[in-house]
Protein backbone atom coordinates (compact mmCIF):
# COMPACT_ATOMS: atom_id res chain seq x y z
CA UNK A 1 0.00 0.00 0.00
CA UNK A 2 1.40 3.39 -0.96
CA UNK A 3 1.87 6.13 1.62
CA UNK A 4 -0.87 8.16 -0.06
CA UNK A 5 -3.32 5.27 0.00
CA UNK A 6 -2.56 4.55 3.61
CA UNK A 7 -3.08 8.21 4.49
CA UNK A 8 -6.47 8.27 2.78
CA UNK A 9 -7.46 5.06 4.53
CA UNK A 10 -6.51 6.56 7.90
CA UNK A 11 -8.62 9.64 7.23
CA UNK A 12 -11.61 7.57 6.18
CA UNK A 13 -11.27 5.26 9.17
CA UNK A 14 -11.04 8.15 11.65
CA UNK A 15 -14.01 9.93 10.11
CA UNK A 16 -16.06 6.74 9.87
CA UNK A 17 -15.37 5.33 13.29
CA UNK A 18 -15.04 8.54 15.28
CA UNK A 19 -16.62 11.36 13.27
CA UNK A 20 -13.48 13.40 13.83
CA UNK A 21 -11.90 15.50 11.09
CA UNK A 22 -8.24 16.56 11.02
CA UNK A 23 -8.28 19.89 12.84
CA UNK A 24 -5.11 21.38 11.30
CA UNK A 25 -1.82 20.73 9.54
CA UNK A 26 -0.03 19.96 12.80
CA UNK A 27 -2.48 17.13 13.45
CA UNK A 28 -1.67 15.62 10.07
CA UNK A 29 2.04 15.85 10.83
CA UNK A 30 1.52 14.15 14.15
CA UNK A 31 -0.58 11.47 12.49
CA UNK A 32 2.44 10.81 10.31
CA UNK A 33 4.53 10.36 13.43
CA UNK A 34 2.52 7.21 14.16
CA UNK A 35 4.72 5.44 11.62
CA UNK A 36 7.46 5.16 14.20
CA UNK A 37 5.07 4.01 16.90
CA UNK A 38 3.73 1.31 14.59
CA UNK A 39 7.27 0.17 13.78
CA UNK A 40 8.18 0.09 17.46
CA UNK A 41 5.01 -1.80 18.29
CA UNK A 42 5.51 -4.38 15.59
CA UNK A 43 9.15 -4.81 16.58
CA UNK A 44 7.96 -6.12 19.94
CA UNK A 45 6.09 -9.01 18.32
CA UNK A 46 7.44 -12.30 19.59
CA UNK A 47 9.97 -10.72 21.91
CA UNK A 48 8.04 -11.32 25.10
CA UNK A 49 6.59 -14.46 26.59
CA UNK A 50 3.99 -14.20 29.30
CA UNK A 51 1.72 -16.77 30.82
CA UNK A 52 -1.72 -16.98 29.26
CA UNK A 53 -3.60 -16.35 32.45
CA UNK A 54 -5.92 -13.56 33.51
CA UNK A 55 -3.90 -10.49 34.41
CA UNK A 56 -4.95 -7.53 36.52
CA UNK A 57 -2.68 -4.54 36.74
CA UNK A 58 -3.99 -3.65 40.20
CA UNK A 59 -3.16 -7.15 41.46
CA UNK A 60 0.26 -6.95 39.80
CA UNK A 61 0.97 -3.73 41.69
CA UNK A 62 0.26 -5.43 45.00
CA UNK A 63 2.26 -8.52 44.10
CA UNK A 64 5.24 -6.48 42.88
CA UNK A 65 5.28 -4.42 46.06
CA UNK A 66 6.98 -7.19 48.01
CA UNK A 67 9.51 -8.31 45.40
CA UNK A 68 13.04 -8.00 46.79
CA UNK A 69 11.91 -6.52 50.09
CA UNK A 70 14.31 -7.57 52.85
CA UNK A 71 13.25 -8.18 56.40
Amino acid at each position, binding site marked *: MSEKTKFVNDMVAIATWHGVQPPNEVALR*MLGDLEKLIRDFEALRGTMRFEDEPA*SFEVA*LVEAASIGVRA
Partner: protein
Amino acid sequence: MMAARLDVADLSLVEAADAVRKGEVSAISLLEACLANLDSHEEAVNATIWVDKEAAFTAARAADAKRAAGGPLGPLHGLPLAHKDMYYQAGRLSSCGSAIRRDFVPDYSATVIERLSAAGAYAFAGLNMAEFAQNGTGHNRHHGDCRNPWNLSYITGGSSSGSGAAVASRFTFAALGSDTGGSIRLPAAANGVSGIKPTQTRVSRYGVMPLSFSADNVGPLARTARDCARIMSVIAGYDPRDPTSAEMPVPDYEAGLTGDLRGIRIGMPSTYFLDELDAPVRAAIEAAASVLTGRGATIVPMTLPLMDAVATYAAVVSRVEGAAIHAEWMRQRPQDFATHINARMFPGYAIPATYYVEALSRRGPILKAFAKEVFSQVDLLVTPTIRTCLPTLAATDIDSGPPGTEQAALGISTNTRPFNYLGLPSMSIPCGFDLNGLPIGLQISGRPFAEAAVLQAGDAYQRDTDWHARRPAIAAV
Protein backbone atom coordinates in the same frame (compact mmCIF):
# COMPACT_ATOMS: atom_id res chain seq x y z
CA MET B 1 20.59 34.71 41.31
CA MET B 2 18.91 34.32 44.70
CA ALA B 3 16.79 36.97 46.27
CA ALA B 4 18.20 38.36 49.49
CA ARG B 5 14.97 39.03 51.35
CA LEU B 6 13.28 36.71 53.81
CA ASP B 7 9.62 36.28 54.53
CA VAL B 8 7.45 33.66 56.17
CA ALA B 9 6.54 32.36 52.74
CA ASP B 10 10.12 31.09 52.60
CA LEU B 11 9.25 28.57 55.30
CA SER B 12 8.67 25.06 54.06
CA LEU B 13 5.16 23.70 54.42
CA VAL B 14 6.15 21.64 57.45
CA GLU B 15 7.93 24.57 59.07
CA ALA B 16 4.94 26.82 58.45
CA ALA B 17 2.43 24.28 59.76
CA ASP B 18 4.46 23.61 62.87
CA ALA B 19 4.91 27.36 63.48
CA VAL B 20 1.15 27.89 63.31
CA ARG B 21 0.52 25.04 65.73
CA LYS B 22 3.00 26.51 68.20
CA GLY B 23 1.54 29.99 67.85
CA GLU B 24 4.78 31.40 66.46
CA VAL B 25 3.09 32.51 63.25
CA SER B 26 -0.54 33.26 62.53
CA ALA B 27 -2.48 31.81 59.66
CA ILE B 28 -3.24 35.37 58.58
CA SER B 29 0.45 36.23 58.34
CA LEU B 30 1.12 33.16 56.18
CA LEU B 31 -1.66 34.16 53.83
CA GLU B 32 -0.53 37.78 53.67
CA ALA B 33 3.01 36.68 52.82
CA CYS B 34 1.82 34.42 50.00
CA LEU B 35 -0.49 37.08 48.61
CA ALA B 36 2.25 39.71 48.77
CA ASN B 37 4.45 37.51 46.59
CA LEU B 38 1.52 36.80 44.31
CA ASP B 39 0.71 40.49 43.92
CA SER B 40 4.37 41.26 43.17
CA HIS B 41 5.09 38.53 40.65
CA GLU B 42 1.90 37.05 39.21
CA GLU B 43 1.95 39.36 36.20
CA ALA B 44 5.36 37.94 35.30
CA VAL B 45 4.81 34.28 36.15
CA ASN B 46 1.12 33.84 35.27
CA ALA B 47 0.72 30.89 37.63
CA THR B 48 -2.95 31.37 38.55
CA ILE B 49 -6.29 31.19 36.76
CA TRP B 50 -8.39 32.47 39.66
CA VAL B 51 -7.71 33.79 43.17
CA ASP B 52 -10.31 34.09 45.93
CA LYS B 53 -8.78 36.47 48.46
CA GLU B 54 -11.98 37.12 50.38
CA ALA B 55 -12.59 33.45 51.09
CA ALA B 56 -8.92 33.03 51.93
CA PHE B 57 -8.96 35.71 54.61
CA THR B 58 -12.15 34.24 56.05
CA ALA B 59 -10.50 30.83 56.25
CA ALA B 60 -7.29 32.21 57.75
CA ARG B 61 -9.16 34.15 60.42
CA ALA B 62 -11.18 31.03 61.26
CA ALA B 63 -7.95 29.02 61.57
CA ASP B 64 -6.45 31.54 63.97
CA ALA B 65 -9.66 31.62 66.00
CA LYS B 66 -9.74 27.84 66.23
CA ARG B 67 -6.18 27.73 67.48
CA ALA B 68 -6.87 30.43 70.03
CA ALA B 69 -9.86 28.44 71.29
CA GLY B 70 -7.67 25.40 71.93
CA GLY B 71 -8.37 21.81 70.92
CA PRO B 72 -6.88 19.51 68.34
CA LEU B 73 -5.44 20.94 65.14
CA GLY B 74 -4.79 19.11 61.90
CA PRO B 75 -1.32 18.58 60.45
CA LEU B 76 -1.90 21.33 57.88
CA HIS B 77 -3.78 23.72 60.11
CA GLY B 78 -3.99 27.26 58.77
CA LEU B 79 -2.03 26.68 55.58
CA PRO B 80 -3.02 28.52 52.40
CA LEU B 81 -2.73 26.18 49.42
CA ALA B 82 -3.50 26.51 45.74
CA HIS B 83 -4.08 23.67 43.29
CA LYS B 84 -3.98 22.86 39.62
CA ASP B 85 -7.30 24.11 38.28
CA MET B 86 -8.77 20.65 37.74
CA TYR B 87 -9.53 19.69 41.35
CA TYR B 88 -13.24 20.10 41.76
CA GLN B 89 -14.40 22.30 44.63
CA ALA B 90 -18.15 22.66 44.98
CA GLY B 91 -19.23 26.09 43.82
CA ARG B 92 -15.81 27.10 42.50
CA LEU B 93 -14.46 27.41 38.99
CA SER B 94 -12.55 24.44 37.59
CA SER B 95 -11.46 25.50 34.12
CA CYS B 96 -9.10 22.56 33.53
CA GLY B 97 -6.92 25.09 31.76
CA SER B 98 -9.32 25.15 28.85
CA ALA B 99 -11.66 27.43 26.95
CA ILE B 100 -14.25 24.68 26.77
CA ARG B 101 -14.58 24.56 30.55
CA ARG B 102 -13.84 28.23 31.13
CA ASP B 103 -17.07 28.59 33.15
CA PHE B 104 -17.37 25.08 34.59
CA VAL B 105 -18.38 25.15 38.26
CA PRO B 106 -18.79 21.64 39.76
CA ASP B 107 -21.29 20.98 42.54
CA TYR B 108 -19.11 18.52 44.40
CA SER B 109 -15.55 18.41 45.69
CA ALA B 110 -12.63 16.08 45.08
CA THR B 111 -11.80 13.66 47.86
CA VAL B 112 -8.26 15.01 48.11
CA ILE B 113 -9.58 18.55 48.55
CA GLU B 114 -11.82 17.34 51.35
CA ARG B 115 -8.95 15.49 53.01
CA LEU B 116 -6.68 18.55 52.86
CA SER B 117 -9.48 20.64 54.31
CA ALA B 118 -10.03 18.14 57.11
CA ALA B 119 -6.32 18.44 57.89
CA GLY B 120 -6.72 22.19 58.33
CA ALA B 121 -5.59 23.58 54.96
CA TYR B 122 -7.68 25.74 52.67
CA ALA B 123 -7.44 26.50 48.94
CA PHE B 124 -7.32 30.09 47.79
CA ALA B 125 -6.49 29.83 44.08
CA GLY B 126 -6.80 27.69 40.98
CA LEU B 127 -3.47 27.31 39.25
CA ASN B 128 -2.55 27.55 35.60
CA MET B 129 -2.03 24.29 33.77
CA ALA B 130 -1.75 22.82 30.32
CA GLU B 131 -5.12 22.67 28.60
CA PHE B 132 -6.82 19.50 29.88
CA ALA B 133 -3.41 18.50 31.30
CA GLN B 134 -2.15 17.65 27.84
CA ASN B 135 1.32 19.04 27.44
CA GLY B 136 4.62 18.78 29.23
CA THR B 137 5.80 22.32 28.63
CA GLY B 138 3.31 24.69 30.29
CA HIS B 139 2.02 26.41 27.18
CA ASN B 140 -1.58 27.53 27.44
CA ARG B 141 -3.28 29.37 24.58
CA HIS B 142 -6.41 30.26 26.57
CA HIS B 143 -5.08 31.43 29.93
CA GLY B 144 -1.61 32.46 28.82
CA ASP B 145 1.63 30.52 29.04
CA CYS B 146 2.92 29.94 32.55
CA ARG B 147 6.48 31.31 32.79
CA ASN B 148 9.42 29.91 34.69
CA PRO B 149 10.21 32.13 37.70
CA TRP B 150 13.94 31.40 37.27
CA ASN B 151 13.87 32.85 33.76
CA LEU B 152 10.61 33.99 32.25
CA SER B 153 11.60 32.95 28.72
CA TYR B 154 11.80 29.28 29.67
CA ILE B 155 9.19 26.58 30.11
CA THR B 156 7.78 25.68 33.51
CA GLY B 157 7.21 22.11 32.51
CA GLY B 158 3.72 20.74 32.56
CA SER B 159 1.08 19.92 32.74
CA SER B 160 0.99 21.15 36.36
CA SER B 161 2.78 24.31 35.24
CA GLY B 162 1.19 26.71 37.71
CA SER B 163 1.72 24.27 40.59
CA GLY B 164 5.46 24.20 40.03
CA ALA B 165 5.79 27.91 39.36
CA ALA B 166 3.57 28.96 42.27
CA VAL B 167 5.48 26.86 44.80
CA ALA B 168 8.84 28.15 43.54
CA SER B 169 7.56 31.75 43.56
CA ARG B 170 6.33 31.43 47.16
CA PHE B 171 2.71 32.06 46.15
CA THR B 172 1.75 28.93 48.09
CA PHE B 173 3.40 26.40 50.41
CA ALA B 174 2.29 23.48 48.27
CA ALA B 175 0.02 22.60 45.40
CA LEU B 176 -1.67 19.52 44.08
CA GLY B 177 -0.67 18.52 40.59
CA SER B 178 -1.63 15.54 38.49
CA ASP B 179 0.69 13.19 36.64
CA THR B 180 -0.23 11.07 33.61
CA GLY B 181 3.14 11.11 31.86
CA GLY B 182 5.26 13.32 34.12
CA SER B 183 2.99 16.26 34.87
CA ILE B 184 4.02 16.53 38.52
CA ARG B 185 7.68 15.64 38.11
CA LEU B 186 8.36 17.80 35.05
CA PRO B 187 7.24 21.09 36.63
CA ALA B 188 8.89 20.07 39.88
CA ALA B 189 12.17 19.66 38.01
CA ALA B 190 11.79 22.78 35.89
CA ASN B 191 10.92 25.06 38.80
CA GLY B 192 13.35 23.67 41.36
CA VAL B 193 10.76 22.19 43.73
CA SER B 194 9.87 18.70 44.96
CA GLY B 195 6.98 16.66 43.64
CA ILE B 196 5.86 13.05 43.89
CA LYS B 197 3.73 10.91 41.62
CA PRO B 198 2.42 8.17 43.89
CA THR B 199 1.87 4.54 42.99
CA GLN B 200 -1.08 4.11 40.64
CA THR B 201 -4.19 3.63 42.86
CA ARG B 202 -2.49 5.08 45.97
CA VAL B 203 -4.48 8.37 45.97
CA SER B 204 -8.14 8.85 45.15
CA ARG B 205 -8.99 10.47 41.81
CA TYR B 206 -12.61 11.18 42.69
CA GLY B 207 -13.50 14.72 41.65
CA VAL B 208 -10.39 15.18 39.53
CA MET B 209 -10.56 15.87 35.79
CA PRO B 210 -9.59 12.67 33.97
CA LEU B 211 -7.11 12.47 31.11
CA SER B 212 -6.09 8.82 31.07
CA PHE B 213 -8.01 6.37 33.23
CA SER B 214 -5.04 4.01 33.33
CA ALA B 215 -2.25 6.46 34.09
CA ASP B 216 -3.67 9.51 35.92
CA ASN B 217 -2.24 10.16 39.38
CA VAL B 218 -2.78 12.79 42.06
CA GLY B 219 0.14 14.11 44.08
CA PRO B 220 1.75 17.16 45.69
CA LEU B 221 4.38 19.65 44.68
CA ALA B 222 6.07 21.44 47.57
CA ARG B 223 9.39 22.86 48.67
CA THR B 224 10.79 19.67 50.23
CA ALA B 225 10.44 15.91 50.30
CA ARG B 226 9.31 16.24 53.92
CA ASP B 227 6.52 18.58 52.80
CA CYS B 228 5.42 16.01 50.25
CA ALA B 229 5.50 13.32 52.94
CA ARG B 230 3.16 15.30 55.17
CA ILE B 231 0.70 15.88 52.35
CA MET B 232 0.88 12.27 51.22
CA SER B 233 -0.03 11.10 54.73
CA VAL B 234 -3.16 13.25 54.45
CA ILE B 235 -4.34 12.42 50.93
CA ALA B 236 -3.30 8.78 50.39
CA GLY B 237 -5.56 5.82 51.06
CA TYR B 238 -8.67 4.05 49.92
CA ASP B 239 -11.68 6.08 48.91
CA PRO B 240 -15.02 4.32 48.42
CA ARG B 241 -15.93 6.99 45.86
CA ASP B 242 -12.94 5.90 43.75
CA PRO B 243 -13.21 2.11 43.45
CA THR B 244 -9.83 2.03 41.67
CA SER B 245 -8.06 3.29 44.80
CA ALA B 246 -6.03 0.69 46.67
CA GLU B 247 -7.09 -0.73 50.02
CA MET B 248 -3.53 -0.61 51.32
CA PRO B 249 -2.58 0.81 54.72
CA VAL B 250 -1.06 4.29 54.64
CA PRO B 251 2.10 4.69 56.70
CA ASP B 252 3.16 7.86 58.48
CA TYR B 253 5.48 8.94 55.68
CA GLU B 254 7.06 11.71 57.71
CA ALA B 255 7.99 9.36 60.54
CA GLY B 256 10.16 7.37 58.13
CA LEU B 257 12.40 10.31 57.23
CA THR B 258 15.48 9.39 59.21
CA GLY B 259 18.19 10.63 56.84
CA ASP B 260 19.81 7.21 57.09
CA LEU B 261 20.26 5.37 53.80
CA ARG B 262 22.57 2.63 55.07
CA GLY B 263 21.68 -0.65 53.41
CA ILE B 264 19.65 1.02 50.67
CA ARG B 265 20.64 -0.10 47.17
CA ILE B 266 20.02 2.46 44.46
CA GLY B 267 20.10 1.48 40.80
CA MET B 268 21.46 3.92 38.26
CA PRO B 269 20.37 2.81 34.78
CA SER B 270 23.12 2.94 32.20
CA THR B 271 20.77 3.07 29.22
CA TYR B 272 17.50 4.68 28.13
CA PHE B 273 17.27 7.28 30.90
CA LEU B 274 20.80 8.51 30.19
CA ASP B 275 20.52 8.45 26.40
CA GLU B 276 21.31 11.79 24.73
CA LEU B 277 21.90 13.38 28.09
CA ASP B 278 23.07 17.00 28.28
CA ALA B 279 26.41 17.37 30.07
CA PRO B 280 25.20 19.64 32.92
CA VAL B 281 22.39 17.18 33.64
CA ARG B 282 24.81 14.27 33.71
CA ALA B 283 27.13 16.13 36.07
CA ALA B 284 24.28 17.00 38.41
CA ILE B 285 23.00 13.42 38.53
CA GLU B 286 26.45 12.01 39.22
CA ALA B 287 26.98 14.55 41.99
CA ALA B 288 23.60 13.63 43.45
CA ALA B 289 24.56 9.97 43.49
CA SER B 290 27.63 10.89 45.54
CA VAL B 291 25.45 12.67 48.08
CA LEU B 292 23.22 9.61 48.41
CA THR B 293 26.30 7.45 48.84
CA GLY B 294 27.44 9.76 51.58
CA ARG B 295 24.19 8.99 53.41
CA GLY B 296 24.96 5.27 53.30
CA ALA B 297 23.33 4.15 50.06
CA THR B 298 25.04 1.86 47.58
CA ILE B 299 24.85 2.88 43.93
CA VAL B 300 24.39 -0.07 41.54
CA PRO B 301 24.91 0.53 37.80
CA MET B 302 22.35 -1.51 35.90
CA THR B 303 20.54 -2.02 32.64
CA LEU B 304 16.77 -1.94 32.91
CA PRO B 305 14.71 -4.60 31.13
CA LEU B 306 11.74 -4.12 28.81
CA MET B 307 12.20 -0.38 28.33
CA ASP B 308 11.34 -0.53 24.62
CA ALA B 309 8.07 -2.23 25.43
CA VAL B 310 7.31 0.14 28.30
CA ALA B 311 7.91 3.25 26.19
CA THR B 312 5.93 1.95 23.22
CA TYR B 313 2.94 0.66 25.14
CA ALA B 314 2.85 3.80 27.29
CA ALA B 315 2.59 5.92 24.16
CA VAL B 316 -0.27 3.81 22.82
CA VAL B 317 -2.27 3.92 26.05
CA SER B 318 -1.90 7.65 26.65
CA ARG B 319 -2.76 8.61 23.07
CA VAL B 320 -5.84 6.43 22.87
CA GLU B 321 -7.27 7.34 26.27
CA GLY B 322 -6.73 11.09 25.77
CA ALA B 323 -8.42 10.91 22.39
CA ALA B 324 -11.32 8.87 23.72
CA ILE B 325 -12.07 11.16 26.64
CA HIS B 326 -12.26 14.23 24.44
CA ALA B 327 -13.90 12.59 21.42
CA GLU B 328 -17.23 14.39 21.74
CA TRP B 329 -15.58 17.81 21.85
CA MET B 330 -13.25 16.80 19.02
CA ARG B 331 -16.36 16.07 16.95
CA GLN B 332 -18.41 19.09 17.99
CA ARG B 333 -15.97 21.92 18.68
CA PRO B 334 -12.39 21.00 17.77
CA GLN B 335 -11.58 24.67 17.13
CA ASP B 336 -11.99 25.37 20.85
CA PHE B 337 -8.85 23.36 21.65
CA ALA B 338 -5.44 24.93 21.06
CA THR B 339 -3.66 23.62 17.99
CA HIS B 340 -1.09 21.67 19.97
CA ILE B 341 -3.87 19.97 21.95
CA ASN B 342 -6.24 18.85 19.20
CA ALA B 343 -3.25 17.96 17.01
CA ARG B 344 -1.85 15.77 19.75
CA MET B 345 -5.14 13.96 20.26
CA PHE B 346 -5.91 13.38 16.60
CA PRO B 347 -3.50 10.46 15.97
CA GLY B 348 -5.11 8.63 18.89
CA TYR B 349 -8.14 7.94 16.70
CA ALA B 350 -5.99 6.06 14.19
CA ILE B 351 -4.57 3.56 16.66
CA PRO B 352 -6.34 0.19 16.41
CA ALA B 353 -8.25 -1.07 19.42
CA THR B 354 -6.20 -4.25 19.25
CA TYR B 355 -3.03 -2.22 19.89
CA TYR B 356 -4.65 -0.55 22.87
CA VAL B 357 -5.87 -3.81 24.37
CA GLU B 358 -2.50 -5.42 23.85
CA ALA B 359 -0.71 -2.48 25.48
CA LEU B 360 -3.03 -2.60 28.47
CA SER B 361 -3.14 -6.37 28.85
CA ARG B 362 0.65 -6.56 28.97
CA ARG B 363 0.92 -3.91 31.63
CA GLY B 364 0.60 -6.23 34.62
CA PRO B 365 2.93 -8.95 33.30
CA ILE B 366 5.50 -6.35 32.26
CA LEU B 367 5.36 -4.73 35.70
CA LYS B 368 5.94 -8.07 37.40
CA ALA B 369 8.79 -9.00 35.07
CA PHE B 370 10.37 -5.55 35.51
CA ALA B 371 10.02 -5.70 39.28
CA LYS B 372 11.48 -9.22 39.52
CA GLU B 373 14.58 -8.22 37.62
CA VAL B 374 15.07 -4.73 39.04
CA PHE B 375 13.80 -4.79 42.59
CA SER B 376 15.49 -8.06 43.41
CA GLN B 377 18.74 -6.11 42.95
CA VAL B 378 17.93 -2.60 44.17
CA ASP B 379 15.41 -0.73 46.30
CA LEU B 380 15.27 2.49 44.30
CA LEU B 381 16.19 3.91 40.92
CA VAL B 382 17.69 7.34 40.28
CA THR B 383 17.61 9.01 36.89
CA PRO B 384 17.40 12.52 35.50
CA THR B 385 13.82 13.79 35.45
CA ILE B 386 14.50 15.57 32.14
CA ARG B 387 17.41 14.55 29.90
CA THR B 388 18.17 17.98 28.53
CA CYS B 389 18.69 21.46 29.85
CA LEU B 390 15.36 23.27 29.88
CA PRO B 391 14.22 24.68 26.54
CA THR B 392 12.59 28.05 26.05
CA LEU B 393 8.88 28.59 25.58
CA ALA B 394 9.56 29.71 22.02
CA ALA B 395 11.55 26.60 21.10
CA THR B 396 8.71 24.31 22.20
CA ASP B 397 5.72 26.30 20.96
CA ILE B 398 4.03 23.82 18.63
CA ASP B 399 1.32 26.27 17.61
CA SER B 400 3.73 28.77 16.09
CA GLY B 401 6.90 26.75 15.61
CA PRO B 402 8.21 25.05 12.47
CA PRO B 403 7.66 21.35 11.74
CA GLY B 404 9.62 19.32 14.25
CA THR B 405 8.75 21.54 17.19
CA GLU B 406 6.33 18.87 18.37
CA GLN B 407 9.19 16.40 18.82
CA ALA B 408 11.06 18.90 20.97
CA ALA B 409 7.97 19.50 23.10
CA LEU B 410 6.91 15.87 23.46
CA GLY B 411 10.44 14.69 24.20
CA ILE B 412 10.36 16.44 27.56
CA SER B 413 8.53 13.49 29.13
CA THR B 414 10.77 10.70 27.82
CA ASN B 415 12.17 9.90 31.28
CA THR B 416 8.96 10.30 33.25
CA ARG B 417 6.35 8.49 31.15
CA PRO B 418 7.68 4.93 31.72
CA PHE B 419 6.89 5.15 35.43
CA ASN B 420 3.26 5.93 34.65
CA TYR B 421 2.90 2.82 32.55
CA LEU B 422 4.62 0.79 35.25
CA GLY B 423 2.53 2.47 37.95
CA LEU B 424 5.54 3.02 40.19
CA PRO B 425 5.98 5.85 42.72
CA SER B 426 8.36 8.45 41.36
CA MET B 427 9.58 11.76 42.72
CA SER B 428 11.54 14.70 41.36
CA ILE B 429 13.72 16.83 43.61
CA PRO B 430 16.03 19.68 42.62
CA CYS B 431 19.69 18.72 42.24
CA GLY B 432 21.39 21.67 40.58
CA PHE B 433 21.21 24.31 37.88
CA ASP B 434 22.23 24.35 34.25
CA LEU B 435 24.40 26.94 32.54
CA ASN B 436 21.34 29.12 31.92
CA GLY B 437 20.48 29.16 35.62
CA LEU B 438 17.50 26.81 35.22
CA PRO B 439 16.89 23.98 37.70
CA ILE B 440 17.78 20.32 37.10
CA GLY B 441 15.69 17.51 38.58
CA LEU B 442 16.67 14.17 40.09
CA GLN B 443 14.03 11.46 39.65
CA ILE B 444 13.81 8.82 42.40
CA SER B 445 11.52 5.84 41.81
CA GLY B 446 10.69 2.74 43.80
CA ARG B 447 8.60 -0.41 44.16
CA PRO B 448 4.81 -0.17 44.09
CA PHE B 449 3.56 1.47 47.30
CA ALA B 450 7.13 2.30 48.38
CA GLU B 451 6.48 6.04 48.59
CA ALA B 452 8.08 5.96 52.04
CA ALA B 453 11.40 4.77 50.61
CA VAL B 454 11.28 7.30 47.79
CA LEU B 455 10.54 10.14 50.19
CA GLN B 456 13.21 8.92 52.59
CA ALA B 457 15.86 9.12 49.88
CA GLY B 458 14.67 12.55 48.78
CA ASP B 459 14.70 13.86 52.33
CA ALA B 460 18.14 12.38 53.01
CA TYR B 461 19.49 14.10 49.91
CA GLN B 462 17.97 17.43 50.94
CA ARG B 463 19.63 17.23 54.37
CA ASP B 464 23.00 17.62 52.63
CA THR B 465 22.06 20.03 49.83
CA ASP B 466 20.29 23.36 49.58
CA TRP B 467 18.97 23.37 45.98
CA HIS B 468 15.43 23.02 47.33
CA ALA B 469 15.79 26.08 49.56
CA ARG B 470 16.88 28.47 46.83
CA ARG B 471 14.48 31.13 45.73
CA PRO B 472 14.24 32.64 42.27
CA ALA B 473 14.72 36.37 41.83
CA ILE B 474 11.77 36.94 39.56
CA ALA B 475 12.27 39.52 36.84
CA ALA B 476 9.67 42.19 36.28
CA VAL B 477 7.74 42.28 33.02
